């Protein structure tokens, strides 16, 4: 059992063996594994979204000198459960002139984009829902599909405010997608692969954020900013613009459809922080100092997935910190910032990274 905690891939191997005994046929075993994996991921997504929403409310509360949810369950732990039950029971109000098919499809598109993106992240050595050799590339593509959901929602709601929000979203997400990709590519240069597992493996000697001098740090900062914009979070939440558009593209949605948007927003936060942790902070790699074997063994006391979740939690906290401190940028300032500041910086960073890689000027090569 203890072995499984530190080596969850052994648990998967044991599971495969057990399934082999029961089912026999390798194809059936594969299908069963896929089904179990999908179910596990779905369960993980639900619990994750609930936990993240609760954490967000608590973090917001404490930053604002108040407590956040306290009543439902001890310290309000069951608050999101209660909210989910409420959303399940709510009445679905559809605007009369809404484009019904697209209106119903939009939240699904957003949710599926987030859900699929989650399948590429390595949580521990050899624990990945999908082992894909162009994982990073594919993830960037799939998460961009979320924009389609936002645009569809804004358009089909038959509401000018939603349309405004959706148009802003389209412009914003597409623009910041570029900087985010360029920042990630800088590290791909160093790691030599777009496979997530390979990227994590390449950080065995050290995390890219400090191992690639300056380039790693700059890429990390650029990625953090761009991914905050990708998730439509303050300071880039002009899309939702609670003070202007009330709820932007999802104003006209209620009950479960709204829950889908809400869920996908928080899963997106997790995904971008997970990608950031994987690419820049070493994913599940513990922090090792070369030569200090005893210290390294201390660090190894924490299982790899705990390292992973710790890093992701720290990044998620930073993203939430941004939300509750900063006001929002106006949409033209946002675009100006991206196209005139962030992208040239990202391109320069990429070029510098290329120079460093070719010259071999990075630590512990």
């Amino acid at each position, binding site marked *: 059992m203890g072995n499984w905690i530190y080596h969850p891939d052994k648990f998967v191997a044991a599971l495969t063996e057990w399934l082999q005994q029961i089912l026999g046929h390798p194809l059936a075993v594969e299908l069963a594994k896929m089904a179990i994996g999908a179910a596990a991921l779905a369960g993980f997504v639900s619990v994750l979204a609930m936990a993240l929403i609760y954490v967000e409310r608590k*973090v917001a509360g*404490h*930053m*604002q*000198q*108040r*407590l956040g949810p*306290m009543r439902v369950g001890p310290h309000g732990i069951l608050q999101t459960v209660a909210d989910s039950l409420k959303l399940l029971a709510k009445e679905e109000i559809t605007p009369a002139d809404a484009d019904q098919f697209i209106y119903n499809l939009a939240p699904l598109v957003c949710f599926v984009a987030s859900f699929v993106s989650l399948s590429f992240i390595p949580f521990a050595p050899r624990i990945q829902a999908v082992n894909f050799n162009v994982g990073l590339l594919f993830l960037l593509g799939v998460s961009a599909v979320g924009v389609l959901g936002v645009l569809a929602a804004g358009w089909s709601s038959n509401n000018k405010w939603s349309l405004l929000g959706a148009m802003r979203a389209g412009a914003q997400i597409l623009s910041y997608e570029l900087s985010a990709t360029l920042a990630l590519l800088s590290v791909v240069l160093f790691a030599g692969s777009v496979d997530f597992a390979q990227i994590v493996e390449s950080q065995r000697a050290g995390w890219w954020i400090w191992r690639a001098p300056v380039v790693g740090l700059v890429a990390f900062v650029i990625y953090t900013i761009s991914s905050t914009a990708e998730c439509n979070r303050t300071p880039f939440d002009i899309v939702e613009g609670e003070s202007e558009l009330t709820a932007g593209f999802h104003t006209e949605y209620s009950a479960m459809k709204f829950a889908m948007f809400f869920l996908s927003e928080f899963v997106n936060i997790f995904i971008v922080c997970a990608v950031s942790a994987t690419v820049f902070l070493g994913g599940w790699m513990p922090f090792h100092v070369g030569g200090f074997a005893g210290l390294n063994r201390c660090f190894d006391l924490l299982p790899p997935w705990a390292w992973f979740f710790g890093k992701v939690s720290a990044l998620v906290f930073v993203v939430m*910190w*941004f939300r*509750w*401190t*900063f006001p929002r940028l106006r949409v033209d300032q946002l675009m100006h910032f991206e196209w005139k500041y962030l992208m040239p910086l990202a391109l320069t960073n990429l070029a510098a990274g290329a120079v460093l890689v070719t010259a071999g000027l990075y630590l512990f090569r």
Partner: protein
Amino acid sequence: MNIFRKTIHGIKGLLSGMRLTFHYFSRPGLVITQQYPENRETLELPPRSRGRIELVKDPQTGHFLCTACGLCLKACPNNSIALEKTRDPATKKMRLVKYEYRFDRCTLCGFCVDACRFEALRMGAHFENAVYDRNELTQDLAGDSPPGAAPGPAAGQSQPPAPPATGDQPAAPEPPKGPP
């Protein structure tokens, strides 16, 4: 390089804002939320708090100090008070029969208390006045067990908790507690 300096200055501003919110986040002892229904025991409202009005009883005799003069009625801006009085055959003085107070009209302005010359009116500190039936908001403050009128000190001092509302008032869900 002006742009460089401006960027650094901007980043410093953003980071100091973040430091301020983290300052409050890392000190949960600074939280100012009061857990309201649970803190009823210790909740202390200032003595001058303006809540629903109450008639004051004379501590010695136990009768209301109100002489039914009607000054409060005239002072009220929106007719929240109506009086019914009768001449007491024994003392030949006017005596209060019914003091109808319409809480759904009252704006808690305090003119009635201001106008009363006999200190027979007091603004109690009851703020839990929600009811399910609007008719319950029309109260007779001089009834047998009027809400809130406890035998006790006059305005300006703390009062013992009020007895639960009974008599012509349907029972309130919970007896509201006055300031300790």
